[in-house]
């Protein structure tokens, strides 16, 4: 399935799905992020969703109409035709099983196709993407309690809560976590994938237009979970290169010891970013190994019992040792 056709389909179908949303809350339409996918992966997700929904509406809408019409039509006051003993019809039963079966078969076919298209480990849809000819940008993602650490092994830099990637390049993400499971998600951009301690998961996306998105955790991981956001900035290649150079010049180095301080439970309200040069080459592996050896970063009692005070502290406290 080639991408341009897909986008056309999405453009055509989008208003259909958006209509009720518009009616209900026109003012917040802009906030309904999933109706504005960016990039091929999210585009494919939207595309498949729309086809699936429309296929299902083929059966849902008539059934809904019947649900409304039958009780009205056959209300006792209307004296419509009444057949008290009619309780079986082979034709209707065959249709009742057959039509859903046909529709479900089609949906199954479509959804399996879709699964391969957006498989986060190796999205089929990115195989022929414009950026596929260039080497991918590799980013290692470590979810701590409750911040995101992004390590760029090829560039030798690291950031907190700030994912910067060049446009027109495929981005490969490798994820793990320190002590709790988190869900990595950038709506409109990348599929949701869990970041899990002692395990490694992956995600991938490519965006061709510079833009800024918000990402966050989707899997509850404790008291600071609601604040666990990060910004995703897609910038032109040249800007990315100069940004990398500026971070490389940063004197803060992300050794494993420095990381252990960062990984202490911290609420980074407002997702204030921090930048590091020369991260430990094997930081990702060391975090995974530590998790496998049973290292956890326990949340101090003060955070759990009186987190209201602490989230305030967290907002003022430096997000990272600088």
């Amino acid at each position, binding site marked *: 399935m080639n991408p341009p056709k897909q986008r056309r389909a999405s453009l055509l179908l989008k208003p259909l799905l958006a209509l009720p*949303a518009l009616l209900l*809350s026109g*003012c*917040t339409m*802009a906030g*309904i*992020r999933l*109706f504005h996918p960016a990039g091929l992966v999210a585009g494919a*997700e*939207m595309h*498949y969703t729309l086809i699936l929904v429309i296929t*299902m509406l083929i*059966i849902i809408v008539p*059934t809904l109409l*019947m649900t409304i019409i*039958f*009780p009205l039509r*056959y*209300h*006792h006051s209307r004296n419509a035709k*009444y*057949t008290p*003993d*009619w*309780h079986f*019809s082979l034709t*209707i039963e065959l249709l*009742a*099983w057959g039509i*859903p079966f046909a529709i479900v078969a089609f*949906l199954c076919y479509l*959804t*399996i196709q*879709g*699964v*391969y298209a*957006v*498989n*986060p480990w190796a999205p089929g849809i990115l195989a022929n993407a414009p950026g596929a000819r260039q080497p991918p940008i590799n980013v290692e993602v470590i979810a701590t309690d409750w911040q995101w650490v992004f390590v760029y092994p090829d560039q030798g830099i690291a950031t907190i809560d700030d994912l910067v990637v060049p446009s027109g390049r495929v981005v490969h993400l490798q994820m793990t976590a320190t002590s*709790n*499971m988190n869900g990595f*998600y950038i709506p409109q951009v990348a599929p*949701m994938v*869990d970041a*899990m301690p002692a*395990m490694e*998961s992956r995600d991938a996306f490519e965006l061709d237009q510079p833009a800024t998105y918000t990402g*966050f955790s989707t*899997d*509850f991981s*404790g008291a600071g*979970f*609601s604040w666990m956001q990060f910004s995703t900035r897609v910038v032109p290649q040249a800007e990315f290169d100069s940004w990398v150079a500026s971070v490389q010049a940063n004197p803060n180095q992300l050794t494993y010891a420095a990381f252990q301080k960062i990984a202490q439970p911290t609420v980074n*309200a407002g997702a204030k970013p921090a930048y590091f040069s020369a991260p430990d080459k094997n930081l990702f592996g060391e975090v995974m190994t530590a998790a*496998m*050896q049973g290292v*956890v970063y326990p949340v101090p009692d003060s955070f759990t019992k009186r*987190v*209201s005070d602490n*989230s305030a502290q967290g907002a003022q406290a430096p997000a990272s040792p600088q």
Partner: protein
Amino acid sequence: MQVAVDGPWSPLLGRLSLAAIPYDNPILVSTFAVVALLGIVIIGAALYFGKLGYIWREWLTTVDHKKIGVMYIILGLVMLFRGFMDGAMMRTQQLLADGPNSPGYLGAQHGYLPPYHFDQIYTAHGTLMLFFAATPLVAGLGNLIVPLQIGARDMAFPYLNATSLWLTVSGAALCMISLFVGEFSNATWVGLMPFSEMPTNPGVGVDYWMWAFQLSSIGTTFNAINMIATIVKMRAPGMRWFRMPVYCWSSLTTNIIGLSIFPVVTVALTMLGIDRYFGTHFFTAGYGGNFMLYVNLFWIWGHPEVYFLMLPAFGLFSEIVPTFSNKALFGYPTMVAASFSIGGIGWVVWAHHFFTMGMGPELNGYFSAATMLVGIPTGVKAFNWLFTMYRGRITYATPMLWALIGLVLLLIGGLTGMMLSASVFDYTVHNSLFVVAHFHCMVLVIGAALFAGVTYWWPKVFGFKLDERNGQMYFWTFVLASLLVFVPLFYLGFAGVTRRLDYIYNPALKPLLWVSEGGIGMYFVSLFYFGKMLYVSLRDQIPAQADAWGTGRTLEWLTHTPVPFYNFAVTPQINARDELAWRKAKGVEGVQPTHYVPIHLPSNTAVPVIIGALATVFGFAMTWRIWWLSIASLLAIIIVVIIRSFDKNEGYVLSAEDIAKMENQVALASIIAEQPKRPALAQVEAH
């Protein structure tokens, strides 16, 4: 081998100390005041009217399936109320804590609940609604109606039945105790791993959750065994398999599911328990532990559990729609086939709850496709209900209204569920409010079915109908409230709002949150009408007919209203599917038996309620690590069971004269009437 716990521990009281009582939290203190006041009023009233002995003799120690059913339903409704209050608090918190400039009250930075408290509230909401509201309501209606519909005297194992009830109650009691002593779990109702493990969650909250869950699931397993054995072994003569009402079929499938899934979650919880108590490493991240294993085991239970609750709802619709369409159920055999298909498919789709965890596309593809298959039998059921209404004579009594709205909700929930089953869509909304809205649609189907069922069978049990006028007001306000609460959640989900947020980052979402909060307000209005409905019906008590709705078709409407505690004075002979409709067609629905034979009934026993109380103590002691008390209460349970097994009591016999008297004056046999003491039989040895 006890894992060292943070903080003080003493041999006598374990981790329990005065600091465990949250007297500094105004919300909990006021809740405690209300609960304590209610408790005092209820006990005081019972004392004042001299009913304490009656409650003990006729209710707490009963083994009558109808009384047990009623108590299940009372438990379910009380817990439904508490779960609803939790839900209201959550929505209010999200409304208040919206955006960085949102104000904070009662010591919270945003909103009025600190994250830790908020997390406990939604955990409690999920746990209570599923295990202590929906499950008891489903089990209660099943207990009440299935033996009546198959013409049985009681369940196959009345004593086990009471034990199931009291184990469920003990789980609910632990949840209630956790409000005022210590804390509840903050690790969500599914128990997130490794978050629930000792290193990251050292408090007693997870233990409370674990034991409440464990005790109630043991109760539910027993109940499932009992129901299956009842349906297989206790059917009245002539009640062949394909003469059983569809509700019994759906009870059978549901309990087959229940029996097969609950052991799995028992294992998962036990593993978590020994992790927490003995320091093993099943679900930790380190030492080779695999927390995905918990997720896997949990959802092996968790997904069929959805159908465990859903199938009885379908069964209820299948009873109510024909009655109020005054027409036989359309497509009975395919209805049965669809129930079994749903049960079977429900067992092989669990991994769609963790599409985002990193299984390969072949697995995600398989689980997506398998999940979609559920749409086929569910669609068949919907069509069969529609064609039952087609060319019927429909009346809009309250149960029918609930059934109709349930059908509409099922379509919406089904559509969104089919969307979610496609993992390509799930990647965008997993763990979002869209999911929350979807499964609330589904539980509202269950809720609608349960309200329908309670309204429908109320007159059979108590002898008078619930007030129609207030019932309909309750219905409309409830439906409006549900729409207001949950439609915005779909949109919030599309906006990318995650579930379980105690703070929402985007102030632009305020209008939607307000709509949702308006729905909560509307729920309070509907609650008022619910109370008014109860009050008016209890005040007027207009006697109902045996066939209370006039168009009943199944066996339970054949016996007296209110139903005597012995169900049928003489066991009916079954001649057809929809026996009562058949008798009406033959003009013999009023023919009563001409003579009676004595009925053998089991005696009441205090053992189940004692087991329940000891189980509560056991759970509490384990939670607080009071080892001596845990061992003592566990031993006490075993000793009580052994003592009971030496009991020679063989029940009692209701003489034919007694039956004749009660048949002429039905109120004497009603389940709320106090029965005179009847001498027990002793068991004799065989030779």
